[in-house]
């Protein structure tokens, strides 16, 4: 990750500041510190400066990290109206193995406000104010942000605390700036208010994000659908895209070449294969490969009761060697199946779903796995199995005409798993995006402190700016950081 110099900060604890709008292009964030004395942002516990964060108490470092994230967004957006972020650092629900790191939401949504391009559509309040050129909800905050102060303590993800540094060198800790950039993205408008489970719109009105959601199978935008159609589209993974012009234009700058899996033979089923990728093994497409698909068989034993689940050493290893192993999902971890396939000499593994829901990405960690793996839906798996006797030949390689994580016309896909995941579905990019994007539902460790394809999306919904370049790369040619607007901190009395 690239280190960035911290811009000038305004940290005036205990004072009420009402900063004027910035003189140049940019957005002025006001961090409203709503914590009580001695806790959260006011935690006086000593802390050593880390990763460019010069704070000497835990509270100061939290505040500086918040300002860093606000400054990154503030430099890229353009609004004459300050964006007020009510922020707290409090204990949140947490266990030893799982806990909420933090979250955000727009404090209000607004429709039919001055200059709003779409009548009768909800806009997040900060954006509505930006479009109106004045605060449409004066006296109120725009975004609420709440983070977990217990992280890293006993019984709350112990051993994995917050990293308050500004350089992204978080190691095994949670990078606060990255999580903040993601959450502020939601607060600024990267979300739909539609109930993904029912397809019902919030208060029976569409929202501006929703207006650009397109189902490429029905060729309908969500605002043209009935609730039932929206609910069906919400689980139509791979076919739901964000149809905004700025996003479409910028997608090639942020998404790598699409890695495709193609059925080359038999001719009756030849064509591109929809698939999911694995978190283990080599990056798909790093090497082009082609081979015959063969059903792997193994003993029905304690490791897995089915003879096609790949959970034990393959009994037909001689047939698998040099070919692509086909196994069924279920009974054991994906990495166990991959290890057995690799031990049998397979050059790749295909896992067919054993249920009709959408095949998930293949999770797990196994550095020893060196062959690529993919997952396919149950229906595609059945089609492949039915043709095995005719000789199924698969090839895996990059397709330079398409982008990873995008559909036709390079429109980036939105996350649409089945069954739906409230809050995660639709209001995030699809996990197939490569390189990883800030607004995927599964935050990745390799994210730099940048806002990638999220910025064009915000521009599409109304955060336009003539003062920043089309790409989100904010580095100047000599590598120095661009100047940032100072952000303001305000203590809530």
């Amino acid at each position, binding site marked *: 990750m690239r280190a960035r110099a911290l811009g000038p900060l305004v940290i005036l604890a205990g004072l009420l500041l009402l900063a004027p709008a910035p003189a140049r292009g940019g957005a002025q964030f006001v961090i409203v510190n709503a914590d009580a004395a001695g806790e959260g942002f006011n935690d006086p516990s000593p802390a050593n400066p880390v990763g460019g964060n010069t704070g000497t108490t835990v509270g100061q470092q939290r505040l500086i990290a918040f300002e860093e994230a606000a400054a990154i967004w503030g430099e890229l957006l353009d609004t004459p109206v300050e964006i007020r972020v009510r922020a707290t650092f409090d204990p949140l629900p947490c266990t030893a193995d799982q806990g909420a790191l933090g979250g955000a939401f*727009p404090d209000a949504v607004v429709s039919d406000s001055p200059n709003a391009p779409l009548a009768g559509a909800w806009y997040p309040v900060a954006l509505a104010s930006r479009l109106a050129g004045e605060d*449409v909800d004066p006296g109120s905050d725009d975004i609420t942000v709440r983070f977990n102060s217990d992280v890293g303590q006993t019984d709350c993800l112990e051993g994995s605390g917050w990293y308050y540094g500004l350089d992204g060198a978080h190691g095994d800790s949670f990078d606060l700036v990255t999580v903040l950039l993601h959450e502020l993205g939601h607060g600024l408008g990267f979300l739909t208010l539609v109930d993904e489970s029912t397809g019902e719109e919030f208060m029976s009105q569409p929202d501006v994000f929703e207006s650009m959601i397109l189902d490429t199978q029905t060729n309908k935008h969500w605002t043209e659908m009935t609730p039932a159609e929206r609910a069906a589209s919400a689980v139509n993974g791979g076919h739901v895209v964000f149809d905004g012009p700025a996003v479409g234009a910028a997608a090639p700058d942020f998404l790598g070449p699409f890695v495709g899996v193609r059925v080359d033979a038999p001719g009756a089923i030849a064509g591109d294969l929809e698939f999911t990728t694995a978190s283990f093994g080599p990056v798909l497409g790093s090497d082009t490969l082609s081979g015959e698909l063969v059903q792997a068989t193994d003993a029905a034993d304690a490791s897995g009761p089915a003879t096609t689940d790949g959970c034990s050493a393959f009994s037909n290893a001689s047939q698998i060697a040099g070919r692509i192993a086909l196994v069924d999902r279920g009974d054991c971890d994906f990495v166990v199946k991959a290890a057995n396939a690799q031990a049998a000499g397979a050059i790749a593994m295909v896992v067919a779903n054993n249920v009709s829901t959408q095949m998930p990405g293949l999770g797990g*960690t196994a550095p020893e796995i060196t062959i690529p793996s993919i997952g396919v839906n149950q229906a595609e798996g059945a089609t492949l199995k039915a043709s095995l006797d005719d000789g199924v030949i698969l090839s895996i390689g990059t397709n330079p005409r398409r982008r990873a994580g995008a559909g036709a016309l390079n429109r980036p896909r939105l996350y649409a798993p089945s069954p739906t995941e409230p*809050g995660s579905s639709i209001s995030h990019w699809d996990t197939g995006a490569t390189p990883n994007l800030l607004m995927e539902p599964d935050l990745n460790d390799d994210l730099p402190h940048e806002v990638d394809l999220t910025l064009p999306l915000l521009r599409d919904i109304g955060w336009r700016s003539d003062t920043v370049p089309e790409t989100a790369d904010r580095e100047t040619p000599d590598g120095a950081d661009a100047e940032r607007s100072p952000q303001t901190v305000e203590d809530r009395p």
Partner: protein
Amino acid sequence: MATRIPGLRRFVPAAGLAALATAVFAHPAPPPPEACPAIDPPSAAVPAGIRAFIDPATGKIRPATLEERRKLAAPVWRDRSGRAYELQIRADGTRIVKLDEAFMMSVVATKNSDGTISYHCRSDRAPAAGGAAEIAK
């Protein structure tokens, strides 16, 4: 100039109207209103027509009480879990609804059995747990 979205429907408040009926007089056969207009203060969005309030108990026209006027001016909508959201309509037609933590998009960290940590962003509308273990097998 504002653009209307295809398939757009306007919000029609349901709550707060149970005890009242609204009638429109004075203009013959006006088109049905897209939305129940705000009445407190009188809204420019309804430039024509006179609204009267019919007491459901007596069936007679009477002035609305302050509480009835407040309810009509601030319709309440409930989501499927019963959470209530109040619509405020400003004199210039701006419509504002305060959101709550049901719309909180939260990043949840999970320690996996192999020691790695995964992150997932979801809303408080989501089930409390589940899903993460399934993707390992």
